[in-house]
């Protein structure tokens, strides 16, 4: 298993945001994490990436217990995290944003080449000198993803990456993730069910902080509990 959690819990002022979650993600998988708003998805990945300290439970990365490691050390082990609320360096150029993500492992010409490749991949190469704040929202999302993939992480955590993207951009995003997934394990938090069904090999459904169900897209689609709790009764509901 590349990533596992054991009994991972977080309590905010007596409220159980996440309760005893056991997660197992093998290397190479695209795993989607879904659930209604307030199900604890962002809190859960916050504990995995080290942004939030768990109340109890453990996190393992590649067999190593990383529960006590600060966020930056976890990233160095090979995790990358893209923020739900776009969090690029607004005052810096597009290329510098991606360079900062890559400079931890590369310098000089190799850095340049890798940054160019990542920007080309997300289609932002011709905007490389613009300030990130001048990009359209959809492009800022793509910049986030470029900053994620340029780190060549072993585990890429994408927190609601398609939020605010247009239809055409979503299609491109799906291709992009599929393209990256041959060398990166992906944990995808996503509201757009079409994207989830398209990409995920397995889906974990979180409800009220606990795992409600887990399985292949077909299994989750057919699961009565999930439909009741989350998808509604319609068969191809686009939950928001």
């Amino acid at each position, binding site marked *: 298993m590349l990533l596992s959690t054991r009994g991972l819990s977080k309590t905010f002022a007596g409220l159980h945001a996440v309760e005893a979650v056991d997660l197992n993600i093998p290397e190479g998988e695209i795993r989607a994490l879904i659930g209604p708003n307030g199900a604890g998805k962002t809190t859960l990945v916050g504990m995995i990436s080290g942004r939030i300290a768990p109340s109890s439970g453990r996190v393992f990365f590649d067999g190593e217990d990383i529960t006590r490691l600060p966020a*930056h050390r976890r990233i160095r082990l090979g995790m990358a995290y893209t*923020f739900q609320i776009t969090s690029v360096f607004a005052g810096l150029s597009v290329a510098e944003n991606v360079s900062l993500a890559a400079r*931890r492992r590369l310098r000089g010409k190799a850095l340049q080449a890798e940054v160019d490749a990542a920007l080309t991949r997300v289609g932002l190469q011709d905007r490389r000198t613009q300030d990130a704040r001048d990009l359209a929202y959809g492009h800022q999302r793509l910049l986030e993803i470029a900053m994620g993939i340029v780190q060549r992480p072993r585990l890429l955590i994408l927190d609601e990456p398609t939020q605010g993207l247009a239809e055409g951009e979503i299609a491109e995003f799906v291709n992009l993730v599929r393209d990256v997934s041959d060398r990166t394990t992906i944990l995808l938090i996503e509201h757009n069910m079409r994207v989830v069904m398209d990409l995920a090999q397995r889906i974990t459904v979180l409800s009220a902080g606990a795992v409600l169900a887990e399985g292949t897209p077909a299994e989750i689609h057919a699961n009565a509990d999930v439909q009741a709790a989350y998808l509604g009764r319609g068969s191809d509901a686009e939950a928001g």
Partner: protein
Amino acid sequence: MRAYAIHAGLLAILLALHFTLPAYHHGNLARVMVLASYAMGYNLLFGYTGLLSLGHALFFAAGMYGMGLGIQHLGLSPAPALLLGLASGAVVSGLLAALALRTSGVAFMIVTLMFAQAGYLTVLYFGEVTRGDEGFVIQQAQRVLWGVDLSAEGNRYIAALLLFGTCLMVSLWLVRSAFGRVLVAIRENEDRVRMLGYDVFAHKLAAMMISGGMAALAGAAYGLLFGYVGATFASVQYSIFPLLWVLLGGAGTVLGPFIGTLFMFYLIDLGSDLTTAYMLIAGVALVLLTLFAPQGVMGEVRRRFWRELP
């Protein structure tokens, strides 16, 4: 390379001015260059890393007293005394950083302000050693560095230029290095930097020690070149000055601190010829600047003419 050429150009102009300026302005400019070195140290922390310290007088004074007390009480010659000043600054800023960097924003300002105030009171408290408010003079004979008498006008100017040039080039190199770019990124979005795998605390600590070290070196040089060490330089006023200079000249630009220091120095100098309320003139200038060029002189140059200005 273009950036280095422009900054080297400024140094060349300053060298040319050495031979052409009338004595009065020649002396002023030597003073401005040393104070601008202090401001550049401040700028590394404030302008580039985004940490607003209100306690840099502590580092300036640590350098000045490290040097001055070394000469006065340990009988050091100028070179080791300067080094002692630099080392005092690095140690003091390292210690303060370890404490103050646990806070951020307004709390960071208050913690640095309080520790600097404690430093100032310490200087007064140990008056027998430091001569307190009155301070002490470093005699001409104690100011001969490698056979060069630093109390002589010409030598003093060249020494100030050497210090200034070193600080300028180190700043320029630093802010364009991988390390410097992470500092800028911390200023822009600290949380994102952490989630890119950088140790934010370690970077801030290093930035504060480099900033404090540069401030201390400037303080030591100031005491040595102008022959006086006193508690005024540890007072809150000297924590506010570099902030004003940097804001005027342009925070987060390499040339800004010099422009700001020069501008403010002459503003006060000319203003005090006109009226005793010369600080009023400085205040009006600051208000105008905030209204019309909030990013400072060089910040405005960067915005309008050259986006890549370091």
